[in-house]
C-alpha cells in the first residue's frame, strides 16, 4: 500500500471506532476535519452538526478560517453547508462565478479569507441528515471525483460512528449529548484563550498545541482543555511547544 492508502485505512478505522469508553465527540469531529485536509485536496475543513433543536452548530474545524466561514454561513443563512444539510446531498459548484450566483455574501467572505472554492458533503445515514462536512480550497475549482468519493465515504463512516455512539447511550444521553458537546466546545475555546494568552500565541497555534499534546499522550481533548482551565497543565504543554516544529497554518 502507498502511505496515503495506509493513512486512509487508518482513518476509516479511527472514524468507525466510537464504541470506546472514553469517546469524545469533539475530538472525533476534529479528527474528521484534520484528516479531510490531510487526505483530500482541501486546505481547510469544518463540520456543522444539527443540535436537538434542529439548529446547525459549528462543531469542529481544521483552522480558524474554516470556523469563521462556517459561522458566517450560519449568520448570513447561505452557503454550501446549509444547502447540503437542508437537501441531504453533496453541494459543489464548478467555479467562483457559479458560487457567487448561489451564495453572494458567503463567496465574498470566502475570498476575503483567501479561499476560492468551497463544497459540502452531507453527514447522513439513511433518511437522517445530522450535519455536513465543509471543504475549502485555496485554488478555484471543485475536488476531483475520486477525492469527493473518499470525502463522502469518510463523512458517512463518521456519521455511522456518531449514530452508533448515540444509539448505545442511555436515552438521556441521546437527547442531550450535543448540548453537552456544546459545553465542551465552549470550554475548549476558553482553554484556547487562556493558553494563547499565557504562551503569547495566536489562537489556532494554541489549539494546535493542545491537540498535539492530547494526541501524543492519548488524552481526550476535552480533558486537556479542562486541565488547562484548572491551571494544572499549562507548563507541560508549553515545554512541549519548544520542542515542536514551527506550525504552518494551512490557510
Amino acid at each position, binding site marked *: 500500500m502507498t502511505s496515503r492508502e495506509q493513512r486512509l485505512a487508518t482513518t476509516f478505522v479511527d472514524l468507525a471506532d466510537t464504541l470506546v469508553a472514553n469517546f469524545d465527540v469533539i475530538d472525533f469531529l476534529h479528527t474528521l476535519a484534520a484528516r479531510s485536509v490531510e487526505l483530500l485536496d482541501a486546505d481547510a475543513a469544518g463540520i456543522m452538526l444539527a443540535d*436537538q*433543536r434542529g*439548529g*446547525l*452548530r*459549528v462543531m469542529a474545524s481544521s483552522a480558524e478560517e474554516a*470556523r469563521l466561514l462556517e*459561522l458566517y454561513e*450560519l*449568520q448570513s443563512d447561505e452557503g454550501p453547508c446549509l444547502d447540503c444539510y437542508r437537501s441531504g446531498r453533496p453541494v459543489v459548484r464548478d467555479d467562483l462565478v457559479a458560487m457567487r450566483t448561489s451564495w453572494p455574501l458567503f463567496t465574498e467572505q470566502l475570498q476575503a479569507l483567501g479561499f476560492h472554492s468551497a463544497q459540502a458533503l452531507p453527514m447522513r445515514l439513511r433518511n437522517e441528515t445530522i450535519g455536513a462536512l465543509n471543504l475549502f480550497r485555496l485554488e478555484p475549482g471543485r475536488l476531483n471525483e475520486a477525492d469527493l468519493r473518499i470525502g463522502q465515504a469518510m463523512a458517512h463512516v463518521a456519521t455511522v460512528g456518531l449514530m452508533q455512539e448515540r444509539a448505545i447511550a442511555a*436515552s*438521556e*444521553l441521546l*437527547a*442531550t449529548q450535543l*448540548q*453537552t458537546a456544546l*459545553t465542551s*466546545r*465552549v*470550554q*475548549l*475555546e*476558553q*482553554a*484556547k*484563550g*487562556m*493558553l*494563547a*494568552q*499565557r504562551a*503569547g500565541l*495566536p*489562537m489556532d497555534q494554541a489549539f494546535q498545541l493542545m491537540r498535539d499534546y492530547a494526541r501524543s499522550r492519548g488524552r481526550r481533548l476535552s480533558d486537556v482543555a*479542562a486541565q488547562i*482551565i484548572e491551571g494544572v497543565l499549562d507548563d507541560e504543554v508549553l515545554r512541549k511547544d519548544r520542542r515542536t516544529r514551527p506550525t504552518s497554518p494551512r490557510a
Partner: protein
Amino acid sequence: MRDQRVVEILSGLAHDGEQVLLPARLCMACLSALPVSGVGASLMTAAGPSGIVLAATDERARQLEELQFALGEGPCVEASGSGWPVLEPDLVATGSPRWPRFGAAVLDAGVRAVFAFPLRVGAIRVGVLDLYRDTPGLLTNRDLAEALAFADAATAVVLHMQDHDGYDGAGPALIGSIDSRAEVHQATGMVAIQLGVSLAEALLKLRTHAYATSRTMSAIAADVVNRRMWFDGDEVGTTRRRGPL
C-alpha cells in the same frame, strides 16, 4: 447563530411585566411551556451549591432546592458538577439508591420525576434549572428541546443579573447578551489570565465593559483576541492599547 427559541423566551419575559423578578418570570414561563408540576432555579459556583435559590414556582419547589443544598446531594448538585442534564423520570424506581436522603424527601413531597439542567458557559458554572413533576415518565424529545432552550434562557438571565447588579430590567440588553461566538469564550480565557481571575469573573468583566462602553460583546472579544485591547488589574475594565502580537 441565535437560537430562535431562546430569543423568543427572553423576549416573552421582557414583555411579562416588571412587577415580578426576572428569574421568577422565567420559571413561571417554563412551567407553563412544559408538562411539569414545578420549576426551581438555583445559583451554583465552581465550589458547588451556592445556597441561593434564584426562584421557584411554588413553595415545594423552593424547599426541594434548599434541601439539595442542605444535604449536598440531588439532581441539581449532580447536574452542575458533571455538566450533564440529570433526567430521573421515575423516582420511585430509581430515586432512592441514587440520592439516599434527597430521594426519600422528594418522594415524601409527592414528586415522581425530576429533570435538572446545568446552566453553564463552558467551564463556568452558573446555576441549575430543576423541573419537578408529580407523575413519572420521560420528557419527550420536543419537551427536552424546550427545556434546554429554557436552560439557555436561564443562563442568560443569571449572567444579565450579575452584570446589572441584580437589577432585572429585561429588554434588548438581555437578549443581546446571548452571543456565544467562539471569540467571546476565547477572550474570556485571555482576560482570566490577564487579570489573574476565574473564568466567571473574566466573563463578568467583559460583559460589564461591553455594557459600560455600549459596545457588543463580540466587538470587544474580537479586540481582545486580536490583542488590540488588554484588561488591566488596577481598575475595573481599564484597557490600554497594545500593538498586535
